[in-house]
């Protein structure tokens, strides 16, 4: 039981990361109907920015942990958002109205290019950092197994929850969110009533990238080590999460992220850790075959 609860805690933390990335996939899919294959790379860039900003703040002599965390958060969100915007502008916007697979191929190219850009500019070796937030407390002990929650996990949950609340407010209550949802429903109609569609799509990418940056920051803090290749697998899993929750649905993305995180944690705990990626991909395949709309998604009607 204790072991189970510990895995639950770990799985929820992992799920928060996947959920944050999955939102980026699901929003972009909702608005322009493409799989933003480069989104995993955007997340990886966010993780690198977290490390670089951590080092820069360290050089500046900032030691207060809350200030350090806030600084890392803001810096990585801003710069990653800039990358998200640029990717959309360079690789996707010129392809509106091209054939269906063109944006996907372009996105794959962008993903390869970004991965190698970071590899060349920052080196291929893994980047380790010291734990920033240390310590934790024991919930209870049972049969010699202590269930622990680290302070970092609490920080991650609070941060993710706050972001989700803020994000939901942004999408449901503000005019910006209304425009975003309008474009999602019908781009042509939205442009006819004066919504700047291009700007809204750009903004979608910016928001998705900012959330992916937070996921990157969390990864950096939680695992303490990243390399240029982290984006590929995490991106795939987050995409699985988005599909599982129902692509196009924001709560679905978060739900799917949590489920993938839990599945992965429990699979590693109770089955073989080597095959945990196979488990995720297997879920992706099964969901796409048997329930392509996911849990909270709307069925897609193909119109001629």
């Amino acid at each position: 039981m204790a072991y189970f609860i510990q895995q639950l805690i770990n799985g929820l933390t992992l799920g928060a990361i996947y959920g944050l990335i999955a939102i980026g996939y699901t929003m972009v899919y909702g608005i322009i109907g493409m799989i933003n294959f480069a989104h995993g790379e955007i997340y990886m860039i966010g993780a690198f920015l977290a490390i670089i900003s951590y080092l820069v703040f360290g050089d500046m002599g900032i030691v207060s942990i809350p200030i350090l965390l806030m600084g890392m958060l803001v810096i990585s969100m801003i710069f990653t958002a800039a990358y998200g915007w640029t990717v959309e502008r360079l690789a996707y916007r010129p392809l509106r109205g091209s054939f269906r697979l063109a944006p996907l191929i372009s996105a794959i190219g962008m993903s390869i290019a970004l991965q190698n850009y970071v590899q060349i500019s920052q080196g291929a070796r893994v980047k380790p950092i010291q734990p920033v937030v240390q310590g934790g407390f024991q919930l209870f002990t049972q049969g010699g197994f202590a269930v622990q929650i680290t302070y970092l996990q609490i920080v991650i949950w609070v941060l993710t929850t706050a972001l989700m609340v803020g994000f939901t407010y942004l999408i449901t209550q503000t005019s910006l969110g209304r425009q975003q949802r309008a474009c999602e429903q019908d781009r042509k109609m939205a442009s006819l009533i004066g919504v700047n569609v291009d700007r809204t799509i750009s903004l979608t990418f910016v928001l998705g990238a900012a959330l992916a940056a937070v996921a990157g920051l969390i990864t950096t803090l939680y695992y303490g080590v990243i390399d240029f290749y982290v984006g590929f697998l995490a991106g795939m899993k987050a995409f699985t999460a988005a599909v599982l929750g129902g692509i196009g649905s924001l709560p679905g993305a978060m739900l799917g992220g949590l489920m993938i995180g839990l599945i992965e944690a429990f699979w590693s705990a109770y089955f073989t850790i080597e095959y945990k990626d196979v488990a995720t991909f297997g879920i992706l395949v099964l969901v796409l075959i048997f329930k392509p709309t996911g849990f909270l998604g709307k069925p897609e009607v193909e119109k001629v």
Partner: protein
Amino acid sequence: MADTVIDTKKPGLMVGWLDLGAMLKECVITALLSAVLFLPFIALHADTGGSGGLVIETRWDSWAWFVLAAFVGRALLVVWRENPSSRTRDMLAKTVVTPVGGFFRKNMVAIGLVALVLAVLFPISPFGNRYSVDVATTWMIYIMLGWGLNIVVGLAGLLDLGYVAFYAVGAYSYALLSQTFGWSFWVCLPLAGVFAAFFGVILGFPVLRLRGDYLAIVTLGFGEIIRVILLNWYNVTNGPDGISGIERPTLFGLEFGRNAAEGGTTFHDFFGLEYSTMYRVVFLFYLILALAVLTNLFTQRIRKLPVGRAWEALREDEIACRSLGMNPTNIKLSAFALGAMFGGFAGSFFATRQGFISPESFTFIESAVILAIVVLGGMGSQIGVVIAAFFLIVLPEMAREFEQYRMLVFGAAMVAVMVWRPRGLLSYRDPTILFSKITGRKSTGREHQA
């Protein structure tokens, strides 16, 4: 009112057709954006310090160069875009067939034959030293993989991101069959193709009903699953250590080693020649050449059969095909299986050539390279694959010092081709069968694929 608004935006300093003010504005914005983007990655570098921890290293000069390059690049782009007499731009924007593509299209058969003769003569020509034949062999492998994937991506329009899985299946099935049962390459080659095709059917059957982009992701997932299984199934695949000592192919029972195995004869003994490692290299080259030509001929022929036409029809409009009573799943499945089969052939050739295989050789990057060859060459174009494979495989091989930039350039080139020429550099998409404009008759001439 609206008119005056437009009028107030008066052109700045005009030099001929070029609005310098607007251009400068664009360039400055680009430079500022690139300054922001490059700041954390180019100007700052998280380097591993002496104590093992990370330290920040600054590279302000290269940052400045990058920003300057962005400024100049944008300026050149504006000039190119605004120039009223820019022929390349109009060509990219308007024409379906580039002059180069048109040239290839008209002289298809001749070019193909010349290329084939050149390829056959290559190993015995003065250029045919050990290294160059080796590189050419690698080139041919990728041409064959590109042609195999072209059936799936170019003809049937299914984006397969896990093609390398079939390559792996072919390689491992040859290696395992030959090591377990001691079967020769020639027995295993067709079996490897059959196995790969079988995998193609198994993997394809449940997922081919999915829409294009979902299919792409699922095939990517399958590719990864197969790689992870190869990596972890120690008892059979020997895990990350791979399989070594894979048997080399023989020419009608003649071996290419220095000494023949028990009861065998070596090639050089049989023909009374001096022993040279070159014979095997040349033999392998001819072998892959034959396999690749087989792939090409097969594709050319099958395009004219009902199933080949069905692939192309399905690529253009699935709904129309379904309403005409075609079964999309079966048609796609045949494309998937045939593409996989050629991947399997290429895989077993790869295994026998290297003598060693490990899961390392079958990563997603490999799939991406093959896809890049098909996409850059022009989907559905046969000669495009040859040329793209030259740029993507042979050139990087010759310029080894730029090795690390190879994938960066691939990625950027894929984006650029999609933006400027979504159908690929040499491509045009004629249907295989056309109604001729003048007579209305069916023309079955040479206007198919480049």
